[in-house]
């Protein structure tokens, strides 16, 4: 590219670029930027939608950090995000490694694995809510391998979150396998040939060739996974409504109920800003961690 921003338009037709960008830009400003600014404003008020907002300064933030429900939901969300993050990284990676040479079966397998990914979460939640009943299908299947399933996992606080994690994993697994496969297929054969010539075994090959060259894929997956997990709402609301005893009460559910059930807009706005800050923070950290070396 040429020297800096000396001119507004380099060539006569560039003005059309500006014209074409205006609808999109206006939309993003109106739908994202303006509301974000308003949210920030609302977070410093007490507002119940009916009476005019009342300034309250940092009161909402202070209350949130002392509020058991909020802190509890942060904890639940953290557990969910970490567990599903690890699960959605390690296991699909392994499966992709085992599968990526096998061409023909790949096509069919890929299509099947992707089915849960494209279904609505509400549908998946409905299916698994029934699947987890006791007595029910899961109990039967576990019985086949000699395990017992005495009660519905969604009924007990200790197990409800794990039930949802398992369902979420089932739903997203195929997506990550395909992502890893795409990344693995992008690695040129020459690297592997070089490794073979050096007499590397499978593990060494993975460590010195595969894993390093998958850095950008890893970064992409980690980012997508994290952002998707922290934003998840549907299964927590439909399968357990945040229960039992708030064991599955994630941050998104907290924000939703605080706003529309408890009519505390200010507090919900503050919570959503905290959530946004967390997303930005973790994403930046992930970029630092996974940054492909500039060599």
């Amino acid at each position, binding site marked *: 590219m040429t020297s800096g*921003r000396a001119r*507004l*338009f380099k060539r006569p037709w*560039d003005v059309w*670029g*500006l014209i*074409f*960008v205006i*609808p*999109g*830009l206006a*939309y*993003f400003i109106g*739908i*994202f930027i*303006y*509301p*974000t600014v*308003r949210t920030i404003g609302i977070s410093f008020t007490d507002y119940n939608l009916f009476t005019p907002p009342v300034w309250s300064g940092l009161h909402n933030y202070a209350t949130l950090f002392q509020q058991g429900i909020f802190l509890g939901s942060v904890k639940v969300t953290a557990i969910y995000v970490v567990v599903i993050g690890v699960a959605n990284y390690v296991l699909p990676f392994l*499966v992709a490694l*085992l599968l990526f040479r*096998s061409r023909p*079966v790949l096509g069919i*397998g890929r*299509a*099947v*694995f*992707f089915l849960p990914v*494209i*279904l*609505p979460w*509400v*549908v998946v939640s*409905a*299916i698994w809510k*029934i*699947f987890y009943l006791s*007595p029910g*299908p899961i109990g*039967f*299947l576990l019985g086949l391998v000699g395990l017992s399933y005495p009660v519905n996992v969604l009924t007990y606080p200790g197990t409800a979150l794990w039930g949802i994690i398992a369902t979420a994993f*089932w739903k997203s*697994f195929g*997506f990550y396998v395909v992502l890893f496969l*795409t990344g693995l297929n992008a690695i040129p054969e020459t690297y592997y040939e070089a490794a073979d010539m050096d007499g590397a075994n499978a593990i060494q090959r993975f460590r010195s060739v595969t894993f390093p060259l998958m850095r*950008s*894929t890893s970064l*992409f997956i980690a980012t997508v996974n994290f*952002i998707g997990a*922290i934003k998840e*709402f*549907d299964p927590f609301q*439909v399968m357990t409504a945040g229960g039992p005893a708030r064991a599955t009460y994630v941050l*998104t559910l907290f*924000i939703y109920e605080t706003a*529309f059930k408890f009519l505390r807009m200010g507090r919900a*706005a503050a*919570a*959503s800003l905290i*959530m946004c800050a967390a997303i930005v923070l973790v994403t930046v950290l992930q970029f630092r961690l996974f940054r492909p070396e500039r060599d």
Partner: protein
Amino acid sequence: MERLTGVLLRVLRYALILALGIAVLVPLLWMVSSSFMRHTEFFAVPIHWLPHQANAEAYGRLVLEQPFARYYMNSIVISVVVSLSSVFFATLTGFALSSKYSFAGKNAVFVFILGTMLLPFELIMIPLYIMMRALGLLNTYGAVIIPGLLGAFGVFLLRQTINEIPGDLLDAGRIDGAHELILFARIVMPLAMPVMAALLIFTFVGSWNSYFWPLVVINSERLRTLTLAVAYMQGYYSTDYPLVMAAAVLSSLPIMLVFAFSQRFFIQSMTLSGLKG
């Protein structure tokens, strides 16, 4: 020895794919199968994996007792409008921000739009609700559609795609005196069509499956979408399971069909983005 491990590995691979395939399909087949059962058979012990007396009465009841066709139409209208608009404006905006144009602040605008992808919907939901209320749009199609008319992901995708289009094509058109809009319609759009189609499908599915925002803004049965309907069918007193499963099947059918016909596009569009850069 080499051959043995080779064969072993292949068997392992096939076994793995088979096992995973079964794990994926069993709940889905259960959904279909139980939608054809009667309520009493549903709770039979030991469990009936396939209905012993299959009948479609759940489907009949679904259509007769509820305005299910209405729900379908609502989902279709919303998803079609959102996806068409999203794709068109993503292409236009992506074109504007691509290497084909250069104006002051272009990169800043792109980074800015990209940044909105990080924003969780919860951040903007309260002001959006208040805006919809002020516009009198609560409980209308408009409230659901407006936040979905354009997405940053689409802009990113199309910009990347249009970058690959040789600039000479456009220059040739300009020499011939063609207006920029014509260039957009006659050169850019046709060349970007495959990606546009992929994005269309992707956006359509995303809108079809959406639950959270419709939950917030839709309160009347008249406007209910399929996802809301499936959720509401599960009461806390009692649930008519075959009915819910029938609704689940019907709600999933269009997506499955679209997927079946455009599988490659689909997967391509969803996995395309970050892997190149």
